[in-house]
């Protein structure tokens, strides 16, 4: 006790002496240092931001004091454009939101319109959609996780999995003819049935991909260097994440098991057996691991859907909304009439409002559609998951170093096209 008292007394004497010196201006204080903050522009174009958005960071040495994100560099006014387009012409707009998983956006939009119109899609088309959507989820997660590897200095994994992503894009090509901005499917089902080549390519890929994925995980999951860079970096608590409107893998990494596919099953997701991986701390490592596990679960879903692919038509019997085959348009009067009416936007849509959401690559992708019975939506609002959760970014990186901020950004899977719509 006495020793402590003495120590305390000594400390006080030293402190008061220091204070006097500080007041005399001889020794710089903490306040003097804090005047020397550096303003750093991370972006708008920066190799580590993977898209065009800016963060104006206040840096104290290597530490981030505050961050101000600026977005909107590739804003294309999709919500405004959608107010002048017939429903089927809005699909290409959705392609260009989260362009890493376009089929999910396409299907989500088609299902929204189908909900409004009251069209029931046959089981086969639903399963085909599930296959396309889960392929899209895998490529989306592959890009996010492998780029996270690149940002931490590991280029190899990225090269390995991009080969597989390329194969998935070849499957897209067989399904719909396009690769990146897919415009896949139609309102009422799919545009065409899976060809034999598509099925064969899918089966081949399902055989080869797990080994590559395994190798990717071996490279990263327990890699000392990688773990040092990502464990405890950019964490967020479940409570904060919910308050910030997080959804998708980022929310699940924080420990909340919310997945639209399970809570509000669409397109027959209730038929499949799969698990929802969750994390505990919501840090970069958890987000990485959740995505990896979701890839395995998506593979499970694709395998089940492919094995149990029902026979039957690949689109709904809804001639008012679903384009007839081109051959029939030349030979059949009714087909010609329907073709003309659909293309010219003369179909009748019910008056009403509908909200439909799907589990996108990075969260709950929602479509709020208000129809006044006209040929175009009266109002269409996209709930873009990364627009909502990217708000939390400054809070997640304040106090960390610049290199940590880069991997945090990378692991959040912010897609500029979706952010700015």
């Amino acid at each position, binding site marked *: 006790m006495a020793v402590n008292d003495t120590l305390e007394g000594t400390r006080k004497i030293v402190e008061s002496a220091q204070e006097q010196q500080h007041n005399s201006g001889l020794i710089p204080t903490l306040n003097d240092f804090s005047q020397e903050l550096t303003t750093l522009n991370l972006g708008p174009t920066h190799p580590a931001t993977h898209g065009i958005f800016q963060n104006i960071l206040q840096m104290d040495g290597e530490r981030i004091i505050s961050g101000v994100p600026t*977005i*909107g560099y590739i*804003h294309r*006014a999709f*919500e*405004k*454009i959608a*107010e*002048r*387009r*017939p429903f089927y012409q809005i699909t290409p707009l959705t392609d260009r939101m989260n362009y890493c998983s376009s089929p999910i956006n396409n299907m989500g939009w088609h299902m929204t319109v189908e*909900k*409004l119109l009251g069209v029931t899609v046959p089981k086969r088309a639903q399963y085909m959609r599930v296959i396309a959507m889960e392929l899209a989820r895998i490529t989306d997660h592959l890009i996010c996780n492998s780029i996270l590897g690149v940002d931490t200095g590991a280029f190899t994994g990225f090269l390995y999995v991009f080969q597989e992503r390329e194969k998935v894009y070849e499957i897209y090509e067989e399904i719909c003819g396009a690769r990146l901005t897919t415009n896949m499917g139609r309102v009422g089902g799919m545009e065409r049935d899976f060809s034999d080549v598509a099925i064969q390519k899918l089966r081949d890929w399902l055989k080869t991909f797990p080994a590559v994925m395994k190798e990717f995980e071996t490279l990263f999951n327990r890699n000392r260097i990688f773990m040092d860079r990502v464990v405890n970096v950019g964490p967020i608590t479940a409570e*904060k994440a*919910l*308050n*910030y*409107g997080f959804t998708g893998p980022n929310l699940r990494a924080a420990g*909340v098991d*919310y997945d639209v596919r399970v*809570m*509000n099953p669409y397109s027959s997701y209730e038929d499949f057996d799969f698990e929802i991986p969750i994390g505990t701390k919501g840090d970069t490592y958890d987000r990485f691991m959740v995505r990896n596990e979701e890839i395995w679960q998506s593979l499970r879903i694709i395998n089940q859907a492919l094995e149990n692919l029902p026979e039957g038509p690949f689109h709904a019997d809804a001639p008012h909304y679903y384009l007839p085959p081109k051959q029939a348009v030349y030979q059949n009067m009714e087909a010609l009439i329907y073709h003309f009416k659909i293309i*010219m*936007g003369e179909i009748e849509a019910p008056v*009403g*409002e*509908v*909200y439909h*959401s799907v589990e996108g690559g990075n969260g*709950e992708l*929602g479509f*709020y559609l*208000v129809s006044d019975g*006209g*040929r*175009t939506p009266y*109002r269409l*609002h996209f*709930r873009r998951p990364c*627009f*909502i*959760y*990217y*708000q*939390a970014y400054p809070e997640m990186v304040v106090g960390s170093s610049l290199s940590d901020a880069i991997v945090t950004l990378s692991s959040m899977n912010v897609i500029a096209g979706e952010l*700015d*719509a």
Partner: protein
Amino acid sequence: MAENTEESAAAQETAAIQDPQAAKNAQLLALLHRLFGADAFTDVEEPYGMLTATTTRERIHEIIAGLQQEMELQLHFLTTMCGIHYPENEGKELGMVYHVHSLVNNLRLRLKIYFPIADPTVPTLTDLYAAANWMEREAYDFYGIIFTGHPNLIRILNVEDMDYYPMRREYALEDGTREDKTDLFFGR
């Protein structure tokens, strides 16, 4: 008349048994009426299974805050919000549409408010939901809705020096001076 009401009540009950969503919505509506009074809500509907109600801007903050605290149905998640413009509704030209979600009970609620375009002020929700910040900036950017109490109400997607609110319906997407294109052929 009495018979009719009895019949409709019975019909509603059977409908509730057949449709669990309708039963949940009825429970939510009863909760809303109990917490905030039946006169707080007008135009109660259930389009495509989602309970939708219109309220006033004076009460919206209180209602969302009350739902955030409420523990029976736990509508604690702000899914999205967006502006909307009906130029022909005089005195109620502009609107805000809020979607809240209960992740525990899987129940969604859509709340709407309408207000005159001459006085487009709405209380902010940023004190309740951090997620509201950018969504309100987006509504301000597109529709010119002023959120009182918002910490940083500036444009978010459009350029700062834009002097109009582009999602308002008076701004046509096509060039209005062109005569070779009419609305007849190009949507609205």
